[in-house]
């Protein structure tokens, strides 16, 4: 079949970026997507639908309810609702084996999870890139902040990020559009926390949502539910941003409904030559060829493809001479924090649905007095304040005219926050091929992942510190919470939807899969730029780091291609 300059596996956040960069640099590029096509605007079938047009009124489709029958895994996340279930994978079609509770949330369409992601974007700092070297967990990152900083800027200028500059070394500032505004409750809590805890900061979330026009995309119109798709392209998605840029070059081809079975490898030349796919409609097998292959299939999807790409040279998976492929799986642990009631401010309100909350940057283990003996690394908080709505009536006595009149007015203020904690890279957290296959004849993953002592010790501090800060800010009835249940569901690995680390970067080919440019140590024309590449997890939302690494890797790959090295 036809040959391309480059093949990109996956069309989500990193696949879209690879497509844009490679086509803009002159490469005829084929993007292969497992899921169906989703056309920008046209296929956002629930966008701006008033709730009364949704038969279940946008019910949360939890596990076991009708409407979630085909989604026993996806239904575990609170993101899964009547209005956006069509952007999640059918679990019966794409199963995996849970050796320990692990929730694998997957998209299954062009655009991948970029349509439903959380849109929070924070730069890493050298506190993160040096962490493995400093405390000995994992392998040393082969890059430092100055290597990636210009690529963060490059990405931010293209995707559009709104946020506030803070000047903090642990959370570097970026190229920001004007920040969204905090509400009165958040301003009150911010003032209280910053007064009681010098060095801690409460800021508005840094989000890949526009507050000014950018490249033909419109600023946010504050309808609220981004996860239904955005016709004005106000939040970053592959559909709104990278894929149109790639299409404009006329060098892009996208084939949806094609699941990659394996990457083809030529042992004589030590190069990959293309991919073998299975058509998800007809089950027919096809092959595509190219000079360079970028695997952007998500951390676990990428591991699965490479593990299934075996040869006499790589019997345990392509580019896996180190044996670490599939291992060092990480996620952020969360759903631990505190909430409470804010008295007063009944003469303040807000207008519009802001798709964003507040952020409290990491303040632990910065090498100062706030360092802890009971765990390493750190965490940040996301949260927000608001006035209670009509739903409060379900928890209060009374009915009739009195209740109806009471619920006409907004209720009191409350404030909540949840921590997002760093997870250590551990060899015994892994994904491997099971002996079961899916309907396309591809072995499915078995996943074995647990939180370790470090994460569990950190969670205690995450709950306590959240409670302590809210109380110091004058919040009443503060209650801490921790959704983690040992061995069960609640805050199990995977639920953070920040899974990463299965094909890590490193300096040593014996202990890592990728070099400093996301190129496999073993095979020069094979690159991995999605979450699989991560050698540690930091505590901040990871997507913008994947984007920056992808753009950087594309720049390197095209240069090497031109130099004749691939």
């Amino acid at each position, binding site marked *: 079949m036809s040959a391309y300059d480059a093949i990109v596996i996956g069309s989500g956040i990193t696949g879209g970026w690879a497509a844009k960069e490679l086509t803009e640099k002159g490469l005829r590029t084929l993007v292969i997507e497992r899921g169906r096509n989703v056309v920008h605007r046209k296929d956002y079938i629930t966008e*701006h639908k008033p709730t*009364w*047009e949704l038969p279940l009124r946008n019910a949360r489709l939890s596990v076991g*309810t009708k409407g979630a029958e085909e989604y026993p895994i996806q239904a575990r996340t609170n993101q899964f609702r009547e209005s956006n279930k069509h952007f999640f994978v059918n679990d019966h079609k794409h199963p995996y084996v849970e050796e320990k509770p692990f929730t694998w949330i997957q998209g299954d369409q062009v655009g991948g999870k970029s349509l439903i992601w959380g849109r929070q974007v924070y730069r890493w700092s050298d506190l993160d890139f040096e962490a493995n070297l400093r405390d000995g967990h994992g392998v040393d990152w082969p890059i430092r902040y100055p290597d990636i900083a210009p690529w963060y800027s490059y990405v931010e200028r293209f995707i559009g990020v709104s946020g506030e500059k803070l000047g903090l070394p642990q959370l570097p500032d970026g190229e920001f559009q004007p920040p969204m505004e905090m509400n009165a409750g958040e301003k009150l809590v911010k003032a209280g926390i910053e007064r009681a805890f010098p060095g801690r900061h409460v800021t508005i979330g840094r989000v890949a949502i526009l507050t000014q026009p950018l490249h033909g995309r419109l600023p946010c119109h504050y309808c609220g539910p981004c996860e239904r798709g955005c016709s004005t392209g106000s939040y970053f998605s592959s559909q709104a941003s990278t894929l149109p840029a790639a299409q404009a070059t006329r060098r892009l081809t996208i084939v949806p409904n094609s699941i990659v079975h394996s990457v083809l490898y030529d042992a004589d030349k030590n190069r990959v030559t293309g991919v073998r796919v299975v058509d998800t409609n007809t089950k027919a097998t096809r092959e595509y060829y190219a000079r360079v292959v970028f695997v952007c299939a998500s951390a676990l999807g990428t591991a699965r493809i490479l593990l299934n790409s075996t040869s006499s040279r790589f019997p345990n998976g392509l580019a896996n001479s180190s044996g670490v492929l599939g291992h060092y799986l990480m996620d952020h642990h969360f759903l631990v924090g505190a909430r409470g009631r804010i008295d007063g401010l009944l003469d*303040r309100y807000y207008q519009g649905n802001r798709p964003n909350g507040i952020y409290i940057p990491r303040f632990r283990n910065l090498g100062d007095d706030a360092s802890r003996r009971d765990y390493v690394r750190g965490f940040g908080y996301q949260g927000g304040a608001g006035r209670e709505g*009509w739903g409060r009536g379900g928890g209060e*006595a009374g009915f009739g005219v009195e209740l109806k009149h009471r619920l006409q007015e907004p209720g009191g203020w409350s404030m909540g926050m949840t921590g997002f904690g760093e997870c250590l890279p551990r060899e015994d957290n892994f994904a491997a091929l099971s002996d079961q296959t899916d309907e396309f004849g591809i072995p499915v993953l078995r996943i074995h992942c647990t939180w370790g002592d470090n994460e569990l010790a950190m969670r205690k501090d995450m709950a306590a510190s959240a409670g302590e800060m809210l109380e110091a800010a004058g919040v009443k009835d503060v209650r801490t919470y921790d959704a983690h249940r040992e061995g069960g569901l609640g805050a199990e690995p995977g639920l953070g939807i920040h899974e990463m680390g299965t094909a890590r970067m490193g300096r040593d080919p014996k202990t890592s899969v990728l070099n400093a440019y996301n190129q496999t140590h073993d095979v020069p024309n094979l690159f991995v730029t999605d979450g699989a590449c991560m050698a540690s997890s930091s505590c901040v939302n990871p997507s913008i780091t994947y984007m920056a690494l992808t753009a950087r890797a594309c720049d390197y790959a095209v240069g090497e291609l031109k130099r004749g090295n691939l």
Partner: protein
Amino acid sequence: MNRASISRRQALQQVAMLLGGAISAPTVAGVLSTATRRAWAASPQWGPRTLSAAQLELVATMAEHIIPQTDTPGARGAGVHRFVDTLLSDHYPTEERDRFLAGLADVDARAQAAQGKTFIACTPEQQVALLTAMDEAAYPPVRIDSARPPETWFFRRMKEVTLVGYYTSETGASRELRVNPMGVYRGDIPFPASGGREWS
């Protein structure tokens, strides 16, 4: 013309395109509600799929007591009973559906015990008295959740689905409350400390 103004013009064109032509933003709500009013109008063919006619009437009657007609329609006018039938048919797991139906039966059993007739056959005053007793049991003055008697599950659930069904209906969301308009976000604005309407 500078770049910013070009962007703004393009922006306005995109908005116009989205709305299907050159109409101004303030009319969007009106356009939507005309279309949706048509969509939501109870069709003459509508019939319950889980509830019997008597159960449907029981749900509608209880819901109307919880959110009655005032200067705006109440739960019955907003079709809460139809929403409840949809939930029971298309969303609730079987056990939960059966528990809800058992709760409805229990309401009639309470009415029989107190008045010797079904809930529907009771006078409005008798119905309110029955619901008041259920409400007081479900929401004791000191909230200790674990101590709440299990038979109060139904009334709390009934109240919850009534509120959801009402305030997410077009009537509840746009006439009783106000639909939060698209377009701008103002994070911290003055508001009357009493008498102001909340966003639906």
